[in-house]
């Protein structure tokens, strides 16, 4: 009878039969996972491939991986699903959402899920700096997955043209300014043809600022996310320096610089250096028509960059089997082999030392040293700004930064006000 049905009908009939069979043979554990993509490139395909590999290894687990937009969208969707009664069991979300997710009572610490000694050991296998944003109240709530730092991309051809050594990118703020002055090219009427450097100030200004403050020897908040240090002298000084790059040294455009178009600016040679996420590395590599290099961000008192990106979280509202399956999935996705393949495909850094020791990544890093810069910078890295009521506190800082860069306010005035407002918000969590 089947051959009389049209092909589509046959396929449907078969799959219904197959579904009925598999359902009757074994009850599969079904997992729903949300994940965001914040940088360009076809990362969804990479994730789908990884999930497929996991399902092959674990035929009793069915994973439904849903691409959920940017970090903000992913959080909104996961939390909405949680409230609607058809929740996801795990999700990749912004590493800095941790305090908020805890306040919402949405997630469980991994310490409660890892039982065997082997699992405990796995929990300790990641780079400690990458764990900072996942830890609070002495427990681990997030496992690093798509993690990045800020690095400095620079145009080696432009360095050569300006008489600079392309293998010696600026290592300090002073060197950055000096090189920037040589790299800023103006035509006869004084119009800039090529800027020295660009640091993006829309989208994630607080993140870039975290790098500048760390370089100036200060951090933006405490580990528990209950206090911010926006008005400390070193922080104010760092913002002053950021503004000076545009207004005093004139090696960067004034006003805010758009996050979304910066990569294109760099690829078209409009800026000789840019600060951007390592998550862009593979795309820049594919599209740059010139010789480019990647370097650690320059230092003032020390080197420094915040980490960034997404962690795995497991939701509280799920059964014990689902939690166990979710843990299995997280372990698979962060295992050295997978982490290595992920890092190679995206430019995000591999999350553990072991991943860099795999053949695949080891060889890749040797042939393309830029891929190791993020890892080497990790020892100087700090946590990304993350507090209770993170969205609101972040916006306070973002607004303060933008008001200074656009010349509306002075650094100390803007940051004192942001600190005062942040204090008011965070008081009840102390």
């Amino acid at each position, binding site marked *: 009878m089947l051959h009389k049905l049209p092909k589509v009908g046959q396929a449907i009939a078969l799959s219904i039969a197959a579904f009925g069979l598999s359902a009757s043979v074994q009850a599969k554990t079904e997992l729903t996972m949300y994940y965001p993509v914040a940088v360009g490139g076809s990362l969804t395909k990479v994730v789908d491939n990884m999930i497929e590999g996991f399902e092959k290894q674990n035929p009793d687990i069915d994973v439904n991986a849903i691409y959920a937009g940017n970090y903000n969208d992913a959080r909104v969707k996961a939390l909405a699903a949680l409230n609607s009664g058809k929740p996801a069991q795990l999700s990749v979300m912004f590493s800095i959402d941790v305090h908020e997710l805890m306040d919402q*009572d949405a997630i469980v610490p991994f310490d409660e899920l890892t039982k065997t000694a082997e699992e405990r050991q796995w929990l300790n296998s990641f780079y400690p700096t990458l764990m900072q944003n996942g830890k609070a109240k002495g427990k681990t709530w997030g496992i690093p997955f798509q993690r990045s730092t800020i690095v400095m991309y620079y145009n080696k051809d432009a360095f050569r043209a300006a008489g600079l050594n392309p293998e010696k990118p600026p290592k300090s703020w002073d060197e950055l300014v000096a090189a920037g002055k040589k790299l800023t090219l103006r035509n006869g009427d004084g119009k800039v043809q090529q*800027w020295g450097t660009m640091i993006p100030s829309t989208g994630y200004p607080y993140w870039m600022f975290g790098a500048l403050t760390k370089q100036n020897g200060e951090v933006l908040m405490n580990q528990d996310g209950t206090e911010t240090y926006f008005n400390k002298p070193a922080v104010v000084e760092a913002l002053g320096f950021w503004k000076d790059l545009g207004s005093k040294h004139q090696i960067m455009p004034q006003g*805010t610089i758009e996050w979304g*178009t910066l990569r*294109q600016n760099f690829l078209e040679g409009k800026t000789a250096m840019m600060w951007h996420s390592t998550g862009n590395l593979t795309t820049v590599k594919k599209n740059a028509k010139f010789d480019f290099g990647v370097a650690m961000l320059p230092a003032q008192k020390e080197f420094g960059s915040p980490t960034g990106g997404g962690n795995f979280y497991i939701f509280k509202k799920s059964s014990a089997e689902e939690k166990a399956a979710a843990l299995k999935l997280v372990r698979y996705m962060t295992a050295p082999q997978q982490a290595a393949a992920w890092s190679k495909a995206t430019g995000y850094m591999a999350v553990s030392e072991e991943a860099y020791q795999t053949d695949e990544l080891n060889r890749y890093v040797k042939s393309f040293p830029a891929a190791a810069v993020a890892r080497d910078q990790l020892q100087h890295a700090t946590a990304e700004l993350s507090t209770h009521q993170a969205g609101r506190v972040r*916006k306070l800082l973002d607004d303060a930064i*933008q008001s200074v860069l656009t010349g509306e306010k002075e650094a100390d005035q803007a940051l004192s006000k942001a600190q005062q407002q942040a204090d008011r918000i965070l008081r009840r969590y102390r």
Partner: protein
Amino acid sequence: MSPNRHLHAWLLLLPAMAMLAAFTHIPAISTLLHSFFESPIAGKTGSFVGLDNFEFALEDDIFWQVLWNNFWYAVVTVPTSIVLALVMAIWVNSQMSGRAIVRLAYFTPTVLPMIAVANIWLFFYTPEIGLINNLLEKLGFEGQNWLGDPDLALPSLMVMTIWKEAGFFMIFYLAALQSLDQSLYEAAAVENSSRWQTFRRITWPLLMPTTLFILINALINAFKLVDHLFILTKGGPNNASNLLLYYIYENAFSFFDTAYAATLTTILLIILALLAWVQFGVLDKKVHYR
């Protein structure tokens, strides 16, 4: 009417009423109720706080700034796009060759999705590689950091909005123009009336119902169309281009302050209701319907 017919009428109305109630009226009422409570934390409902949320709004600098921004946004974009729409409609209504193509060209911005359009305009506005600055510099003018300068960010958004809206309103004017009674124009020609007089005394009054309709739509759009903000400025720099609805979104989904978002939504609803009342209650009486 027999009771049977009443029942009939109610049954016919029921689907529409059910949809309206489920997606408009019940959410509006629950928004109003939410605005009197604290934000729920960890699934527990917050306690009743009366008008606290509204008091907070009054003290919130950003709220006043976005309200002010939204006021300017409406004041500039609404009349400009209406005038442009009218001019374009009159032009493409005249007898000329290739007018189908011109009509299509004017209507294209309306067809494109706002997010796609914003992504294109992002690259128009971007300073070093953008179309606008490159053109300006070719003509010998100084390029600007359109979206990165607090004085220019909102006006830049306005320009894009006008470009997007005018074509849409043109269609309404065009339809209205084509339904006008030609004998009036013949009479005007006999009376030797000037073109301006003809427009002022015949076209404009007869188009008033259309203008009112467009005005209402344009004003509502000025408050409810914020898709482009997500791509272009995210309300920045420092809230210079932030609009009320986008601020509501930020509060609800970035800050998880649902109570304050509900409060701001209530305020937005009140503003829109007032505008609608002015338009229907006051202007409508002055409009000439045939």
